[in-house]
């Protein structure tokens, strides 16, 4: 049996986001292909009990580190967590448990931790992966380059491999109702010391409490066609009936109508929701770079020649000020019926 596949999960109050379940499912799949075991490492608060549910995704053993216990090693108080301590925990855990494939979500935490873990384990690193193939004894990871304008197959040459998975791309597959065994791990046993807390997060400020575009499964985006900041209520109303996040083109972010955290595109966020509705967005190459891998793209634009229609699955040529209210109303009525 080859070495194990490790899924790293961070958890708050017993809740796991969808990308975490994607990581579990993929870890289990890879382990089956390699005829080995997949295990999960969770760092979290009040999440020990709910981690048992990982059994549903084929993970039999979950190793759990209590965040408060980890933080207490720092000798400091009043902080949320430490990036530097997390990366040490993952690296040391992987070594101690004989794991040579480590999967994380490509969320902001995963993007920060994975390269650190890769260095610590002298691993090959593939960020933002969209598919993993096993070819004999080789592992090939697919990832978009040039903001999705090309797709590359990357051979991970070192024995250990660290991979982050692009959220919303991998499927979540619930296999059974089985529960996993949760094993509590003492971070001291992994050799974590005070000096591993060189970077600490004092505070987390949630700016809006809204769903972030990078994590959303549905997105309604607005562009310069909306004409003013106030008119974005049309975008927000449609987003609300769909349970979608709101996105924006750079033009409207630069104009100060929307925050940069909503910008989709080459210098904004890369998204792959199952539904992306682009309203009053022309479809400049830099915008497409961030959203062209969305599963279903809908465009609303008054210019029938707007480039966005070339990649749209569905579209309406029309004025956003007529189409959006009608669309919100129609969806509201079919969803409630």
């Amino acid at each position, binding site marked *: 049996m080859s070495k194990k596949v490790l899924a790293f999960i961070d958890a708050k109050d017993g809740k796991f986001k969808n990308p975490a379940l994607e990581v579990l499912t993929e870890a289990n799949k890879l382990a089956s292909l390699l005829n080995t075991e997949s295990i999960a490492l969770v760092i979290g608060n009040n999440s020990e009990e709910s981690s048992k549910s990982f059994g549903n995704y084929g993970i039999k053993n979950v190793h759990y580190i209590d965040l408060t216990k980890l933080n207490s090693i720092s000798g400091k108080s009043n902080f949320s967590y430490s*990036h530097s301590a997390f*990366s040490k925990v993952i690296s040391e855990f992987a070594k101690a448990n004989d794991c040579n494939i480590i999967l994380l979500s490509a969320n*902001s935490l995963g*993007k*920060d931790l994975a*390269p*650190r873990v890769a*260095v610590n384990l002298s691993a*090959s*690193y*593939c*960020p*933002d992966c969209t598919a993993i193939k096993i070819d004999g004894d080789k592992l090939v990871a697919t990832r*978009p*380059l*040039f*903001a999705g304008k*090309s797709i*590359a*197959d*990357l*051979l*991970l*040459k*070192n024995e250990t491999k660290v991979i982050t998975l692009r959220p919303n791309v991998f499927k979540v597959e619930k296999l059974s109702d089985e529960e996993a065994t949760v094993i509590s791990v003492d971070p001291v046993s992994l050799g974590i010391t005070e000096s591993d807390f*060189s970077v*600490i*997060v*004092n*505070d*987390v*400020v949630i700016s809006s409490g*809204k769903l*972030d575009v990078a994590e959303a499964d*549905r997105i309604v985006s607005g562009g310069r066609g909306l004409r003013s900041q106030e008119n974005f209520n049309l975008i927000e109303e449609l987003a609300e009936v769909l349970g979608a996040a709101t996105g924006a083109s750079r033009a409207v972010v630069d104009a100060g109508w929307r925050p940069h*955290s909503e910008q989709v595109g*080459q210098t904004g966020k890369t998204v792959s929701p*199952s*539904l992306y509705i682009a309203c009053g967005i022309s479809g400049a*190459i830099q915008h497409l770079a961030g959203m062209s*891998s969305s599963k*279903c*793209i809908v465009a609303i634009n008054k210019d*029938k020649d707007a480039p966005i*229609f070339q*990649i*749209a*699955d*569905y*579209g*309406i*040529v*029309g*004025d956003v000020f*007529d*189409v959006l209210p*009608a*669309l919100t109303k*129609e969806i509201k009525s*079919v969803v409630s019926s």
Partner: protein
Amino acid sequence: MKVIVCVSLVPDSTTKVKIAQDGKSIDESGVQFILNPYDEFAVEEAVSLKEKLNAETLAVTVGTDKATEAVKKAFQMGIENGVLIKTDNEIVDTYSVAKNLADFINEQKPDLVLLGKQSIDFDSSALPSMLSELTGIPSVNVVVKLTIGDNKVTAEKEIEGGQEIISTTLPVIIGTQKGINTPRYPNLKSIMAAKKKNVETRHSTYNENATEIIKMELPPIKGKGKILTDGANSVPELVKLLREEAKVI
């Protein structure tokens, strides 16, 4: 105070990617190269520290001769010194770039290392973290606000739906995100001054690759979409398609 800015040269964001003959790289003919847009924030942050605190500034890039262009752009914005860590071939493995930069940083012992949060060609967003582990210097990436006190550093990192307020100490490695500042446009005077400056060339210290691109393709082209043309009157049909055909609502 000594500040090092890591800069990279990338294809302009309007580039239409073509795959080269070898099937594993892009065809660079006709491609215009620019300073990575995120690196402009890093350069601006360094130059403003030069102006405010008389910081010593140095831009470094890892790559072939062509990469000196990135350092020259940094000169135009006001960086004083520049180094090319020259590799024989175009390197595509982030770890390899990180090793070369880490060796350089260990030698130079800067107080602050600035990078862009991500290069727009390989989009790895990995270098700040990798450099941190290789040098033992703490790092924060995706920073939208940076405050440097006597020895204390406070950085605001953009995360999903909000910000993390992070504290650490100098020396520190920072990856810059849009919002941290507004990069200046070089003026004629600074462009002329930049022409007189030299980029020091050194040889790379590490040439192995932990990853290798074995194939590159263009993304699959979508089939022609169903575009309805009757404005708001098309709404019921669109909703029907989204429900019954695409099954997304």
